[in-house]
């Protein structure tokens, strides 16, 4: 599962994408974020305030409870500031 990070999340975690294989019981976004937060202190810090984190699965926005499938492309990012 490829996980993309953007903006300050990318900077805090220190990479723009990582490939992880969470255990099979991690089947939704909420659980995935909990699991990612345990990977390193940097992950924990980047994931501290979940209320500001946006999530996309396969390049579509999803809500925190959304289900995951094997091979999904995940993206985590702070609030967008385009335009």
């Amino acid at each position, binding site marked *: 599962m490829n996980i993309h990070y953007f903006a300050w999340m990318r900077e805090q975690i220190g990479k723009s994408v990582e490939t992880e294989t969470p255990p099979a019981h991690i089947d939704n976004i909420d659980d995935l974020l909990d699991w990612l937060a345990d990977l390193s202190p940097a992950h924990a810090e980047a994931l501290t305030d979940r209320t500001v984190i946006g999530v996309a699965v396969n390049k579509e926005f999803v809500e925190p409870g959304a289900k995951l499938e094997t091979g999904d492309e995940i*993206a985590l990012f702070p609030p*967008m500031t385009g335009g």
Partner: protein
Amino acid sequence: MIRVQAEDFDLGAEMDALTGSRKDIGAVVNFIGKVRDLDDGALSAMTLEHYPGMTEKMLADIEAQANTRWELQETLIIHRYGRLEPGEQIVLVITASAHRQSAFEACAFLMDWLKTKAPFWKLEESDKGRSWVEAKQADNDAADRWQEPGS
């Protein structure tokens, strides 16, 4: 039509290409967003990061939505990414319609949407250091006013 690009754009050329030969367009509204140096000389650059693939998909979606909500003859969204200096152009939205009200509303709608729902992030470098631009509540409020009942 949408384009996500590092290169600058030429408003006159884009307008000509979009509406130049048309005789059925009555009203064209353009919005151009530029890198602004609020505190003279303080900002050295703004770097726009985006999510390739998702950006194009989201922009095409919102353009289609604008065309469903208003009667538009042409629409164009160009959004740049990469390192930009104060005074440089960031974004161009053009809406062309038979009627000015539709062109104005659709252009404002697209801009409000881009501010809050397009996967771009802005990093500012100034004499005070580097910092990520924070999302503004006012932008969320502006986007919310287009919410359709039940959605």
